[in-house]
């Protein structure tokens, strides 16, 4: 079933979007939220479990202090108010991946409230209000077997892996974000990008969307332009990449516009995003949603963060991405546009680290946005995934600056680094990539070129000095690019013109 879609630009003439995001982040704590089990990703199913996270009769939770601390730090980084006293709550529902028959979460007493995050899209700043940041436990993972899609529909049976059950999960909920207009999809993406960077900077999680350690639900609604009342929202789940965040909002806007155009009513429902098609399909309807019967978790004592401790955590927060960008932009003397390129390419941290390792900001930018970006693009990977470190890139720029290699040789040295042959200097030595000095070999090559092209020599001597270029090319070719072109030119001049 394909949904009817309205052209994006056209729908914006009649409708305004309101978006909202719920982001789940698996914290990178060594142990689970309420027991001592390990949290390593990708372990054999059901090997990281115990009576507590399996919900065996009689077992009791004990809250992980490191997870509470990480949540408070996230809240502080988002400018939230930190509760001085709050409780966990039970969210009751039946599903095989929640071992206790309830999820231990927070309800009306979240740990952090009322923060905000400013994001920039095309030079314009949008303030995203954060409603709450709370702490809960992850569910187990269902594996539906026997069907074509891996989804429950059509499966013959399901397996449950409880390794993930009980991993600390932070939920960050925005308030509805109106006023983004045509930029709604990009604002949504920019928000998640910025949030991800903040959490990465805090070291609270590895925030890998593809591994599910950062998961996003995207709420979208449309209302007729000028209407004060917002439309009915849908909640799109399974949005597993930054690009998908943008696409999901865009698709929902186009689909809802078609529904509204046809005089229909948008259903308040959960929808499922399909990465391949870039579309959404209905999940369970919120209008028949279960009553979760939240009540304060009696097995856990309230969380009462000491005010002094919270102040200390606030004081010890690292430099956050926005502040860092502002500082680096100034230090490096970049325009806002140049800075935006760097950020969008995912190269900021890499360039910063390369500068820290000794490169000039200009050289570092040139390498990461030029040659390295090209390589990453060719290989279909992220810049950060290239097998070269900022320190190695800095070394490359140093070798060029010192004249040990020229740009072309440096690229060859990079080949070696990427092939795992070692650091640039090692590759240069091993592959013999250093620029030739005025060696016997080079003198021989120069003289061979002169001897091999008497006509060119004649032209040069006849006054057509630019014909010398052909001889330079011949020498460079003979030395397989290892010679320094300027040196070669000088040597030729001495012999052809100056004699």
């Amino acid at each position, binding site marked *: 079933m394909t949904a009817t879609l309205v052209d994006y630009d056209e729908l914006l003439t009649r409708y305004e979007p309101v978006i909202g995001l719920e982001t789940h982040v698996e914290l990178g704590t060594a142990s689970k939220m309420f027991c001592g089990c390990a949290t390593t990703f990708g372990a054999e199913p059901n090997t990281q479990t115990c*009576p507590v996270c*399996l919900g065996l*009769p*009689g077992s009791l*939770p004990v809250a992980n202090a490191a997870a509470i601390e990480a949540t408070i730090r996230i809240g502080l980084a988002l400018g939230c108010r930190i509760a001085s006293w709050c409780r966990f709550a*039970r969210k009751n529902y039946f599903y*095989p991946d929640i071992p206790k*028959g*309830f999820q231990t979460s927070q309800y009306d007493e979240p740990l952090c409230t009322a923060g905000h995050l400013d994001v920039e899209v095309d030079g314009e700043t949008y303030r995203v209000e954060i409603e709450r940041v709370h702490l809960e436990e992850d569910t187990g993972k269902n594996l539906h077997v026997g069907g074509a899609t891996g989804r429950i529909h059509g499966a013959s049976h399901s397996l449950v892996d409880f390794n993930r059950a009980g991993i600390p999960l932070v939920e960050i909920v925005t308030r509805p974000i109106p006023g983004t207009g045509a930029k709604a999809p990009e604002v949504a993406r920019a928000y998640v990008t910025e949030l991800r960077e903040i959490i990465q900077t805090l070291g609270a999680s590895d925030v890998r969307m593809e591994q599910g350690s950062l998961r996003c639900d995207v709420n979208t609604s449309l209302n007729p332009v000028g209407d004060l009342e917002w439309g009915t929202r849908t909640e799109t789940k399974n949005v597993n990449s930054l690009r998908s965040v943008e696409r999901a909002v865009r698709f929902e806007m186009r689909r809802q516009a078609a529904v509204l155009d046809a005089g229909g009513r948008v259903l308040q429902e959960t929808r499922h995003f399909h990465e391949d098609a870039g579309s959404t399909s209905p999940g369970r309807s919120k209008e028949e949603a279960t009553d979760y*019967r939240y009540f304060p978790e009696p097995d856990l004592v309230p969380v009462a963060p000491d005010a002094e401790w919270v102040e200390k955590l606030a004081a010890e927060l690292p430099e956050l991405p926005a502040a860092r960008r502002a500082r680096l932009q100034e230090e490096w003397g970049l325009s806002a546009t140049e800075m935006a390129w760097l950020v969008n390419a995912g190269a900021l941290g890499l360039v910063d680290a390369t500068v820290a390792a000794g490169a000039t900001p200009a050289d570092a930018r040139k390498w990461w946005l030029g040659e390295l970006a090209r390589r990453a693009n060719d290989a279909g990977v992220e810049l950060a995934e290239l097998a070269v470190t900022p320190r190695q890139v800095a070394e490359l720029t140093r070798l060029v600056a010192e004249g040990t290699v020229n740009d072309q040789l440096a690229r060859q040295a990079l080949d070696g680094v990427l092939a795992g042959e070692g650091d640039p200097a090692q590759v240069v030595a091993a592959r013999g990539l250093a620029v030739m000095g005025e060696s016997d070999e080079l003198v021989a090559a120069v003289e061979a070129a002169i001897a091999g092209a008497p006509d060119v020599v004649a032209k040069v001597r006849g006054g057509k000095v630019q014909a010398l270029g052909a001889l330079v090319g011949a020498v460079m070719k003979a030395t397989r690019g290892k010679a320094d072109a300027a040196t070669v030119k000088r040597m030729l001049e001495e012999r052809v013109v100056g004699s």
Partner: protein
Amino acid sequence: MSTPVTDDLTSLDAAELGRRLAAGGTSSVELTQAYLDRIAAEDGVLGAYLHVAGEAALARAGEVDAARAAGEELGPLAGLPVALKDVFVTEGVPTTSGSRILEGWHPPYDATVAARLKAAGTVLLGKTNMDEFAMGSSTENSAYRPTRNPWDPDRIPGGSSGGSSAAVAGGLAPWALGTDTGGSIRQPAAVTGLVGHKPTYGSVSRYGLIAFSSSLDQAGPMARTVLDAAVLHEVIGGHDRCDSTSIDAPVPLLVKAAQEGARGELAGLRVGVVRELGGDGHSDGYDAGVLDRVRETVELLAGMGADVREVSCPAFDLALPAYYLIAPSEASSNLARFEGMRFGLRVGDDGSRSLEEVMSLTREQGFGPEVKRRIILGTYALSAGYYDAYYGQAQKVRTLITRDFTTAFDDVDVLVSPTSPTVAWPIGARVDDPLAMYAADLCTLPASLAGLPAISVPCGLSEGLPVGFQVMAPALADDRCYRVAAAVEAALDAARGSRLLDELANRGAAA
């Protein structure tokens, strides 16, 4: 103290058994065998046990005897048998919580209290019967079988720890652990002539105790004497990092308090008699005989130098409705994990049914009627739109009850009352009347809701059946309960010239 009427080991208290073990007068194997023999002879009628771990018990007893023979230093409890209510998970030993839904489940771990008893060298005789998921006051709600009262096999042994009370009163275990949510240690102790103590909430670990109502459940000792109860309590009590609600405070010196109490050291003790629990205008539903015994006991305390006065705690009148909202609410959530997916019973999984159908069938067939009643009650009380009116209001009542206690304890050191309004009733008399059954907990509910320690100590007979006297104390002042209970016990034993339980043994001998 009094001398036992027979030299049958199973009629002795644990302290005496411990002395004999230490002195070499008996061995753990001999002792364990004596209880196993008695279980074999009596439990067909009594129904105190759901599982008897005979072989394992004898093997363990043999180990302790061997260690003793090898001159190893052993703790005072080493080699003493003990019974555990089937609500405690025990590694490798079947644990059902009295429910079909856990039939055949062998837990992979030990409850903290079970582990502490093991570490103290005790020998686990078996797991005792109980009302399913501890929901009941008569043990008739056990999914397996009812338990009978050793004082009169046609009567209930109390509940929900009725298997433990029957086992200890009947000489099928020297002592036992029970759990108390709204009175489930104290009331069965009262109606079988035992001492039973519900500790301060949070002072005994709940880890491995199959939850009924998390904010109320407490494990505690059930024993033939106050001193035995104190000894057992000291072993299981104390902080446990596996239980977030566990209080990180030392266990009060309970044995010392029991010893001092037994010497009658009560001068200056201020005792408050709670009017709302059987006093003037609040005696409907109370047996006259029960009120007589309690009045006599209060007079006894006064005679020992205690300063006795009446105290009013008006919010106690609301304890019953508040309890029957809070406990079922928590239970409805605690019992959600029993859905047939990971352990215990699974019904209808024949490939033709959906997940939801299998879960429903399992719960439909796995839970008994009282459990279902409470799940439905609790689910309703927590539902959107009803939460504030029911669960929320009940929590407010809880606060009021706690406030009444706090006010009362400004003026008195302990509060006293009957433990149960009546003596043991005939089996079947209340099964069709849940409210009558619930009323059995009238006197025990306030301390439960406030999380306070309370003990039941025998204070004589009415209609030939035991009556319990309840002593309540401020949080973490469990020692006061033991002190007063020991004074009552010693004075009554002295007046009687024997122990109350000896009377039961004499009847048995006469029969």
